[in-house]
C-alpha cells in the first residue's frame, strides 16, 4: 500500500474553499460558485461562469461569450493567451484548454513554484476551439469528468462520418435528423466539423435551434467557419422537414418543439454515449461519442507530460483515477472536495 494519502496543504498555490478554488497569493477565485471580489473564469459554461462577482478576469477570445451569458455590464479584464499578469505575489497566465472557444487553463507561478488549473479541457482536434496547450507544472489541478478507462474517445472525424451517414439514412426514410449537443460548444463544434465535409453546399438544409444560433456570432468573429444555416422556425420546419439536419440543445429532445419536424430521428453527441446503458437512457435513436472533456488516456498523458508531482482531480467521479495515479504511477494524487451542483 502507498504511504498515507496526500492531503491539501496550506502551502498550496490553490486551495479549495466554500467559494471554489482560491488562489491566496493573488487573492482571487477560479470559477467561483458564489459571488466574490475577483473571479478568474476559465470558460463560459454555467458551472464555471456565475454572475454576481465584482471583477472578472478571462481569456480575450472568450470575452464576448462571457458577456452574452453574464451581461454586458460586468467588469471584465481580458488576457491574451500566454500574456503574463502579475497579481499580488502571483504571475498568472492563461493557456488554451481546447474545451470550447476561449476556454483557458490557468498557470499560477509563485516564487518558482508552478500550479496549472486545467478547467475543462480536451486533447482531441476541434475546429471551433483553440488547441490544447501543454503547460509543464509541479502541481496539476485537472478535471476528471470521465475518470474511468472505459471512456476512450474514438477519432472525431470518424464520428462525423457516422453523423453524415445517419443524416443520409434519415433523409432516405423521410425523417428529420435532430442532433442534440450543448448549445454552447458542442453545437458549434458539430457545425464547424461539418464545414470541411460539406463545404458551402450541404445536401439538405441545416437548421439551428435559437439557443445555438444566439452563440454563432462570437464564433464567426473569431474566424470559425460554419456551413450555411437557417433558424429552426415553424416556416423552415414546414419547408424542410423529412430532410433537414437540426442542431439543438439536449433539453429540446422529447419536447413538443420537435413535433413541427414530422417524423424525426434524435441523435445525441456526448462522451456519455460511449456506454450502451446511457445511450438507451437518453431515449434518443442514436448516440455519437463526441466529448469536449478529456478522456482517460488523455488525462493520463497530460499528467505524465506536464511532469506534475502532485495531481488534484475535480469535476467528476475521481476516486478511481486518484487510486490509479497513486498505486500505478506513484504520484501524490488527491480528489478535491466535490462541489454541489
Amino acid at each position, binding site marked *: 500500500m502507498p504511504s498515507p494519502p496526500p492531503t491539501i496543504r496550506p502551502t498550496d498555490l490553490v486551495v479549495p474553499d466554500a467559494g471554489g478554488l482560491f488562489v491566496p497569493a493573488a487573492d482571487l477565485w477560479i470559477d467561483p460558485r458564489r459571488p466574490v471580489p475577483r473571479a478568474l473564469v476559465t470558460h463560459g459554461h454555467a458551472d464555471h461562469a456565475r454572475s454576481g462577482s465584482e471583477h472578472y478576469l478571462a481569456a480575450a477570445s472568450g470575452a464576448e461569450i462571457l458577456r452574452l451569458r453574464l451581461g454586458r455590464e460586468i467588469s471584465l479584464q481580458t488576457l491574451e493567451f500566454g500574456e503574463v499578469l502579475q497579481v499580488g505575489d502571483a504571475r498568472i497566465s492563461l493557456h488554451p484548454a481546447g474545451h470550447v472557444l476561449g476556454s483557458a487553463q490557468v498557470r499560477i507561478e509563485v516564487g518558482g513554484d508552478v500550479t496549472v488549473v486545467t478547467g475543462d479541457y480536451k486533447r482531441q482536434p476541434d475546429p471551433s476551439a483553440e488547441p490544447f496547450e501543454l503547460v509543464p507544472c509541479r502541481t496539476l489541478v485537472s478535471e476528471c469528468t470521465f475518470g474511468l478507462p472505459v471512456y*476512450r474517445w474514438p477519432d472525431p472525424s470518424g464520428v462525423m462520418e457516422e453523423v453524415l451517414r445517419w443524416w443520409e439514412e434519415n433523409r432516405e426514410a423521410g425523417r428529420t435528423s435532430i442532433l442534440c449537443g450543448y448549445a454552447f460548444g458542442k453545437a458549434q463544434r458539430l457545425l464547424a466539423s461539418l464545414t470541411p465535409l460539406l463545404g458551402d453546399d450541404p445536401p439538405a438544409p441545416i437548421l439551428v435551434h435559437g439557443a445555438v444560433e444566439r452563440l454563432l456570432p462570437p464564433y464567426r468573429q473569431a474566424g470559425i467557419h460554419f456551413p450555411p444555416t437557417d433558424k429552426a422556425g415553424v416556416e423552415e420546419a414546414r419547408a424542410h422537414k423529412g430532410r433537414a439536419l437540426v442542431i439543438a440543445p439536449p433539453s429540446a429532445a422529447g419536447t413538443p418543439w420537435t413535433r413541427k419536424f414530422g417524423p424525426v430521428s434524435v441523435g445525441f453527441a456526448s462522451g456519455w454515449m460511449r456506454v450502451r446503458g446511457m445511450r438507451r437512457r437518453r431515449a434518443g435513436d442514436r448516440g455519437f461519442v463526441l466529448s469536449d472533456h478529456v478522456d482517460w488516456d488523455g488525462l493520463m498523458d497530460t499528467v505524465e507530460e506536464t511532469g506534475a508531482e502532485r495531481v488534484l482531480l475535480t469535476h467528476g467521479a475521481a476516486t478511481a483515477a486518484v487510486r490509479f495515479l497513486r498505486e500505478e504511477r506513484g504520484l501524490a494524487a488527491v480528489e478535491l472536495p466535490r462541489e454541489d451542483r
Partner: protein
Amino acid sequence: MKRFVRLFVELDRTTRTTEKVAALERYFAAVPPADAAWATSVLMGRRVKRAAGTGQLREWVAEASGTPLWLVEESYDAVGDLAETLALLLPPPGPDAPPPPPLHRVMEDWILPLPELDDEATREVVETAWRHLDETERLVFHKLLTGGFRVGVGKKLVTRALAAHAGMDPAVLAHRLTGPWSPDPDTFRTLVDPDADLPDAGRPYPFLLAHPLQLDPLEPEGARELGPVSDWIVEWKWDGIRAQLIRRDEEVLLWSRGEEVVTPAFPEIEEAARLLPPGTVLDGELLAVGDDRPLPFAELQRRLGRKRVGPKILRDVPVKLLAWDLLEDGGRDARALPQAERRGALEALFRNLPERGIPLALSREVDAPDWEALARLREGARDRGVEGFMLKRRDAPYGAGRERGTWWKWKVDPLTLDAVLMYAQRGHGRRASLYTDYTFGVWDGDDLVPVGKAYSGLTDKEIRETDRWIRRHIVEKFGPVRSVEPGLVFELAFDSIRRSSRHRSGVALRFPRMARRRPDKAPAEADTLARVRALLPPAEGHGPAGPGDG
C-alpha cells in the same frame, strides 16, 4: 460475424417491435442457413455450454489492457454490462487486423470447443478472437462466450420474423422450434421449409401462458370485460412447475416450461404416463404433495434437475401432475378446439384411469354461481396453500405464448409491510447508471435486519428521485453495494412469506416489490421483525413458498 453484429446493433438501437422484426427479417434474408441457424439459436436464448468463466475473462482483459483488476471492477460497476465493459477496456485492434469469420465459424471453431480446453488453450483462442474483432464485435463475442445473450428479442419475435421470411405459419414454426434441434444448416433448412414433414415425437407444444388479472371482476369495468363467471373454467392456482406430459408411440417425455426435459427426475410420472393412450399430451402443474396438501416449492426444487432420484427422495417428496388441459388427443392436435371441449375430453380420459394410487390427477373445477361467491372463496386461498385462481375462457382455443385474455391468474391480494431502505446497487442494462436494486430491512430492536430485495414497482421519475437521495446518503461501499442511512420507508408487497434458515431475519418473502413510497413515515415507524414473523403460516401448514415459474 459482421452481419450478425450489425443485427445486434440494430436490435439494440430500437425499442419498437416492428423495427426489430424488420431487422431480423433483413438479417435472415441476407445470411446463409449456417449462420441463420446459429443466430436463431442464440437469439432465442438457447445456451451453449459455458465456454469461459467471467473471472478468467476479467483477468485476461486486465492484462491485455494494462488495467488493474480493481479498475476493471469499478468500470463494470459504472457500465453495468460485463461483456460491454471488457470490450470497452481492450485496446483497439491494429489496422491490419484480419476480418472476422462468419457467425457459424465463430461458434463452431472458437466457442464450442472451449469447454474441452485447459485455461492456457482457452486463453489462446480468446486472444485470437480479439485480434480478429473490433469493439462491438468483441462485445457480442463476449456475450456468446459467457452465454448471456439478451437483446430484447424473445422467442416470439424471432419466430415471427423467421416465419415471415420463410413464408410459414408462425404457430407451426414455433412448435418446430420448441424442444431440441441442432443449429446446423441442414436441420435449419428443414425447420423453415413449409413443406417439410417433420416427425413430432417428443416435441412439446409452446405453452400458453396466463397473465395476472389486473381487473377486479367485482367492479363494473372488470365485470364488463370478463362477462359472467359461467364463461370461464375456474381452477385453483397451485404453486408448482408448469409442465407438459407427452405420450407418443413408445415415448414418454415430461417437459418443464423452461423447455427442458425433466423426465429422469420424475420416474413415477413416467411410469404412470404409460397408462395413457399413445398420442396424448397433457398440460398441467407439477406439484410436491404430502398428505394431499402441497409441500413448499423448495421441496419440489430438490427433485428438479436430478438425473437420478433415489428411493429416499421419492418417498420424502412425492409428486403429482395436476392435469388441466389436453393438447393432443388420439394423436390429433386438439389446440384449436374450445377450452370447454378440451376439458370434456380431458375428463373422459381420466375416467379411464385409476382414481387413486397414481401421480396423475385432474385439476378440479371450482364451482361458483357468481364472481362474489368466487371472491369469497379466494379469501381462503392462502389457508388452502394455493395462490388464487386460474381463469380459462370456455370458448377459446389454446393459443401460443402470451396471448392476452384467454387465461388469467387471479391471485390473492399481496401481503404488505413497511420497510426501510438499507442497501442499494446499480441496475443493469438501461438502468446501469442508476441505483435501482434495493435491499429493505425491518427493525429488530435497534437494528435493521434485511428482509428482502426489490427492484420493481417504481416509476422512472421515482427511481431517479430515489437514486438522487441514495447518492447523497451513502455510508459505505462493499463492492457494487452501497449502504445508505436509514431514511426512506417503502411499502413492500409480496405474495407469500416462509421460514428460511438462510436469511438472518429467518423469513423469506416471495416476489417482493415496491408498492409505493411512504414519505409520510419516519424510519422508526417501519415494521418490526416480530410483526413480519406474525405473517408466517402456522408451522405445520405447508404454505406455498419458494420461487416458482408463476
